[in-house]
């Protein structure tokens, strides 16, 4: 019995050894050809980024903390291109980003992009690419307003490549990171034609009256279940009839959309606003119109109080 088991084990061992030897032999012949093929497949894309480069070699990427870099290629004497894969809005996005040796971003070529047509695909248009190419590896890159998820993912991927490149080349000063694009304003909202919200509380301190007032935002207007109005703190100078300041107390609209208005550029519109002028208006933040309106509603309630 033991003898039989030993025989089986030995037989399998011999078969496996022969199989292993055969595989090692074939692998030694094909491995260099396969490595060359993988560059050849990428070469056309690399050539677009580095038109002057004549030869490319794969580069091993170590210490990539982000784990987003899938491959890197050095263009001899010109720069380095990184192949990066990030998770976009719907599916992974693959792209190549090329840096010249002096730290300039020379090219961005999107290889695979399956995000929403007309929204996510904007990262593959000059609108986005022109904002990337020409910057340096220490500059921040702005996301696209309205395509934040897709462009944010790409910028994050570029950032990972920049971090690796900067560490490699000893470039100091960080990667600049993700820059939020400047706020875009839409239509003006007239203060005195808006329906008034509700004043919650009121404290008088000399000339300045501080109101806590609420205005219905997107969720309430659209009838979401359990939706609550947005609450603001509004300070009005009752002597000069001017608004002193407006700020959020509670934001109850969609996260990531409603809180777009929580920016200095938006709030500063209210400072010094003449509440005796019937034509006063505030520019709504594009993409967060309802939430912008809720502020004006609360303000109207405070004015009428």
């Amino acid at each position: 019995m033991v003898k039989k088991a030993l025989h089986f084990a030995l037989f399998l061992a011999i078969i496996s050894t022969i199989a292993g030897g055969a595989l090692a032999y074939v692998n030694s012949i094909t491995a260099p050809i396969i490595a060359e093929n993988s560059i050849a497949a990428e070469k056309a894309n690399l050539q677009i980024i580095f038109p002057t480069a004549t030869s490319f070699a794969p580069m091993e990427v170590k210490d990539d903390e982000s784990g987003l870099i899938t491959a890197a290629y050095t263009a001899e004497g010109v720069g380095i291109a990184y192949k990066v894969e990030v998770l976009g809005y719907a599916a992974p996005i693959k792209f190549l980003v090329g840096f010249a040796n002096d730290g300039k971003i020379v090219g961005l070529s999107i290889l695979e992009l399956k995000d929403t047509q007309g929204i996510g695909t904007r990262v593959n248009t000059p609108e986005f690419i022109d904002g990337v190419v020409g910057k340096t590896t220490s500059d921040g890159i702005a996301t696209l307003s309205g395509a934040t998820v897709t462009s944010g993912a790409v910028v994050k991927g570029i950032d990972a490549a920049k971090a690796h490149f900067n560490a490699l080349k000893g470039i100091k000063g960080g990667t600049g990171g993700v820059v939020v694009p400047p706020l875009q304003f839409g239509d003006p909202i007239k203060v005195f034609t808006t329906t008034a919200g509700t004043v919650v509380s009121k404290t008088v301190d000399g000339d300045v009256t501080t109101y806590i007032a609420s205005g219905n935002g997107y969720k309430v207007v659209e009838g979401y279940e359990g939706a609550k109005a947005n609450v603001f703190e509004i300070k009005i100078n009752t002597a000069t009839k001017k608004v002193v300041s407006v700020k959020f107390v509670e934001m109850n609209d969609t996260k990531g959309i409603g809180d777009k208005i929580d920016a200095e550029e938006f709030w500063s519109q209210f400072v010094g606003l003449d509440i005796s002028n019937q034509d006063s208006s505030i520019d709504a933040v594009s993409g967060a119109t309802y939430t912008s309106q809720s502020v004006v509603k609360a303000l109207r309630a405070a004015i009428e109080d």
Partner: protein
Amino acid sequence: MNRLDNFKAGFIRENPVFALYLGLCSVLAISTTLNNAVGMGAAVIAVLVLSNVIIAAMRKITPDEIRIPVYIVIIATLVKIAELLIQAYAAELYVALGVFIPLIVVNCIILGRAEAFASKNTILDSAIDGIGMGLGYTAGLILISVIRQILSSGVLNFSNPFTQQMIFEIRLIPQNFVIAMFSQPTGAFLTFALIAAGVEYLRTRPAKKAKEVK
């Protein structure tokens, strides 16, 4: 059974795809273009013939109790070699076939023939069986692929897998009349089922006649 019969068996009577329903997973998945079919067919024939020959050569020294693991090691080795060679010399085909090359290991045709034929027959007979079965599989694959490619793209083309040079290309159906569904799994099942029904009819018809005569 003489050798010619043995060779012909793989085509109709024991066609692995349409009569034995073996290896269907890869057939349904990759039968989208003629190129894929020919490439996959060639890989399967090579692995099948070589595994049949090796297993037949070792049939007297292979202990019966551990024959399956031995077969699997042999088949897996051959498949991996085929995969490396395809990856190195026909990169385009490698991308198109993807995961279905390594899956040849578990393709029932190969283990099926090793177990049912090669383990009991001589080296020559096993080689002939491998070629017959392999060609039968390839023929089935090509038939489905040609139908699906023509219906789904309207174009039938074939290019050299080693150089990507186009050998021929003909448009048979105008662009506006193609049925894109045939490039999807639905089209694969539909095409396969219709052909399998036809083959089944051809296979069983003579038998019925013979019965009636009795």
